[in-house]
């Protein structure tokens, strides 16, 4: 009996909630460093704060052992520029990534990734994660370094991305947390930040939480707090029919509560107006179809008759060998590839001369045209059997076997069904020809109104060289920080923020919680369980998504953005004030909807503040159609002060301008805490 409906059909009553219900019961705890979110960033933060001697608490809505977007694995470690084989310096790589994103990226975050993500990887190896070819299965492969046995992906010349067998990454991190005595609160969602005197903009002194099994309430005091939660997800798209909540690349628990909490506390954000397209449930299982992208890079693709699709370098030169797909073009120093650093060209869909510098080899860009002419017949297939043995095994055995959400859903399920990469060619979906310009073949052309927050280079908390936000006591790591993120960014910034928060906590005053603030939060959190009727979370979620699509969608303008804000204000006072929850799970999802209301408002405020369109932010204003005029080449910031939105700005490269030092290296040396 595995289906809930079976209970009813058997004649049993619906089973009682499996956990004791303890609404409004108080729990209090305190730490030197309080970490909200136990994903990759949160775990590395916890380990490094604990190593500095801090008493650490980690709070996670799921269970740390598998929670977060990398919960079930990782297959490649990006921008590990300090590994012994890498030919690109952290400074050069940081500049290249920022340039490739048109300057719309956070240099502090990227530099920390380039500078210490390899150290974070070495930490993981110490915890038992396999990061080398210890079995010598790839001896002699082009991508293996014979001395260190490290294996690389993408650019085999420059070796900045390490292939890792990370399917057991989270269990290893979880074990390390336990060993260091970190106190873990699983199944507790953080609901708000507590500030000194309950004042907006004051020092952060802790957080409140809700147990999503029992409904009990938590008050956490922290001398320092690290936000290691996520960007808002499913803000424009709510669709469970096709693949459940697997319609983004993110853990379904990620609603963006870290954003909403920090906003309410008065922290400053930037680049929130950036967004990207999202096909929702129309997508296929990531890396589960024939494709030549990321984890599958650079798999040979053939058409229905077995005819090979040519690969070309950035200059359009046809590449004759498989080996050349992993090498820069003549005259090109290195190419960029991998989540978060290279996909802007694909997500923006408009060729921009800047992309040329670090563009990777790819399938020939005239493929759509040649499909239309009948030169290539659909469907396309990933010709794994046609790949050299080491490459085939690296793609399917190593990367698909270890990437998040691919070990079981792709490797295990497909091989159990008889798929054999030595013999079989995996089919790509039959999309309109233009879709094949973007090598992520699991994703069809999305409906224009369906969006998601910026992924490659999205909005987030403004931070300084200590990874401190604009609020005293509040640090940030991973996706919470301004700019793009991936697994290794999360690990590196978590590692750094853990040290910095522990350092601050050593001399920080004891946190004093404002009881009024707690009382107000408690009333907000439990209101939905006091109602039996009204609006359910699904209706609320879909309604919020609709407002985002209409008023903050593909095209924006002052008048309709203001209407969107009006709708949200009104929904808060009517439908949302009438939302019900029948158990702690529904309460969690209802609170997620409240979070989305705030996140949506934040994005609308940021969108109103930018009176210009932007190619790079995928941001189109009907009333200000000119894209990226010179005077708008700056970060727009937004924050709340005394309940009012304050708009500001920051220059590109603010991290290299006074009072900061003029170079990455000097700033890092000054602040890194090593």
């Amino acid at each position: 009996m595995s289906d809930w409906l079976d209970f009813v059909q058997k004649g049993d009553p619906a089973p009682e909630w499996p956990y004791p219900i303890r609404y409004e019961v108080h729990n209090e705890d305190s730490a030197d460093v309080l970490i909200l979110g136990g994903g990759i960033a949160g775990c590395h933060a916890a380990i490094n704060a604990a190593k500095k001697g801090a008493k650490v608490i980690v709070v996670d809505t799921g269970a740390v052992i598998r929670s977060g977007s990398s919960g079930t694995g990782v297959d490649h470690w990006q921008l590990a520029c300090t590994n012994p084989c890498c030919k690109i310096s952290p400074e050069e790589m940081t500049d290249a990534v920022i340039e490739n994103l048109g300057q719309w990226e956070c240099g502090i975050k990227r530099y920390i990734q380039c500078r210490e993500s390899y150290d974070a990887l070495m930490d993981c190896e110490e915890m038992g994660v396999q990061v080398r070819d210890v079995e010598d299965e790839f001896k002699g492969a082009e991508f293996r370094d014979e001395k260190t046995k490290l294996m690389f992906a993408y650019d085999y010349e420059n070796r900045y991305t390490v292939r890792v067998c990370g399917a057991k990454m989270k269990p290893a991190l979880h074990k390390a947390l336990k060993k260091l005595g970190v106190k873990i609160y699983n199944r507790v969602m953080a609901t708000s930040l507590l500030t000194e005197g309950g004042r907006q903009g004051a020092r952060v002194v802790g957080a409140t939480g809700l147990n999503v099994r029992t409904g009990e309430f938590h008050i956490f005091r922290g001398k320092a707090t690290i936000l290691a939660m996520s960007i808002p997800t499913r803000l424009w798209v709510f669709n469970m029919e096709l693949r459940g909540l697997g319609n983004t690349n993110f853990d379904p628990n990620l609603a963006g509560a870290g954003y909403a909490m920090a906003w309410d506390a008065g922290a400053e954000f930037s680049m929130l107006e950036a967004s990207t397209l999202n096909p929702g449930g129309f997508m296929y299982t990531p890396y589960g179809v024939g494709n030549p992208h990321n984890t599958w890079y650079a798999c040979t693709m053939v058409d229905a008759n077995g005819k090979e699709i040519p690969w070309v370098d950035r200059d359009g030169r046809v590449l004759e060998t498989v080996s050349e797909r992993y090498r820069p073009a003549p005259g090109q120093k290195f190419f960029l590839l991998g989540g978060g650093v290279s996909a802007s060209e694909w997500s923006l869909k408009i060729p921009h001369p800047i992309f040329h510098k670090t563009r990777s080899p790819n399938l020939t860009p005239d493929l759509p045209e040649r499909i239309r002419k009948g030169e290539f017949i659909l469907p396309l297939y990933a010709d794994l059997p046609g790949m050299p043995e080491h490459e085939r095994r690296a793609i399917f055995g190593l990367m698909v076997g270890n990437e998040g959400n691919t070990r079981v859903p792709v490797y295990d399920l497909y091989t159990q069904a008889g798929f054999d990469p030595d013999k079989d060619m995996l089919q790509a979906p039959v999309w309109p020809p233009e879709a094949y310009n973007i090598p992520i073949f699991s994703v069809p052309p999305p409906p224009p109104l369906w969006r998601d927050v910026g992924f490659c280079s999205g909005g987030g908390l403004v931070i300084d060289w200590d990874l401190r936000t604009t609020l005293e006591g509040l640090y940030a790591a991973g996706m919470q920080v301004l700019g793009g993120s991936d697994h290794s960014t999360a690990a590196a910034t978590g590692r750094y923020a853990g040290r910095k928060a522990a350092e601050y906590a050593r001399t920080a005053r004891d946190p004093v919680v404002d009881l009024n603030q707690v009382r107000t939060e408690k009333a907000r959190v439990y209101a939905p369980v006091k109602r039996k009727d009204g609006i359910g979370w699904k209706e609320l979620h879909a309604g919020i998504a609709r407002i985002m699509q209409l008023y903050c969608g593909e095209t924006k303008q002052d008048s309709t953005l203001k209407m969107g804000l009006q709708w949200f204000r009104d929904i808060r006072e009517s439908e949302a004030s009438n939302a019900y929850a029948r158990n702690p799970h529904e309460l969690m999802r209802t609170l997620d909807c409240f979070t989305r209301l705030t996140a949506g408002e934040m994005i609308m405020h940021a969108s109103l503040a930018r009176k210009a369109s932007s190619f790079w932010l995928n941001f189109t204003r009907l009333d200000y159609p000119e894209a990226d005029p010179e005077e708008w080449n700056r970060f727009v910031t937004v924050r709340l002060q005394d309940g009012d939105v304050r708009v500001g700005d920051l220059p590109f490269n603010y991290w290299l301008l006074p009072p900061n030092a003029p170079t990455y290296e000097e700033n890092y040396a000054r602040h890194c805490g090593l």
Partner: protein
Amino acid sequence: MNKKVYMIPNPFVPGRVVVIDPDLCNGCNACVEVCAPQVIMPTPGKKNPPVLLYPDECWFCGACVMHCTSPGSITLEHPLNQRVGWKRKETGEYFRIGMQNPPPPNTKPPIG
């Protein structure tokens, strides 16, 4: 044919998402403990298999399968709209996830 028919809601989501074999399941609830969105919930009684309470919230991560202490008793299942096909290069045969009479399983393990 004389089985009772009940008034019950439609299936929550297309597909079964996660399938638990009650004969193999030992009721340890390891899957419950790792499932981030609480798709799988414990049921009353010791050693009873858990129940799929919120299958519509599954994101197909496979953590439940990874942590199963009685392997084979829990399986992830892609809904039909997610099932893909492949072609055997030598023979041109076409196979797909979910087909009748599939080829024998490929037992080669992944790396790591």
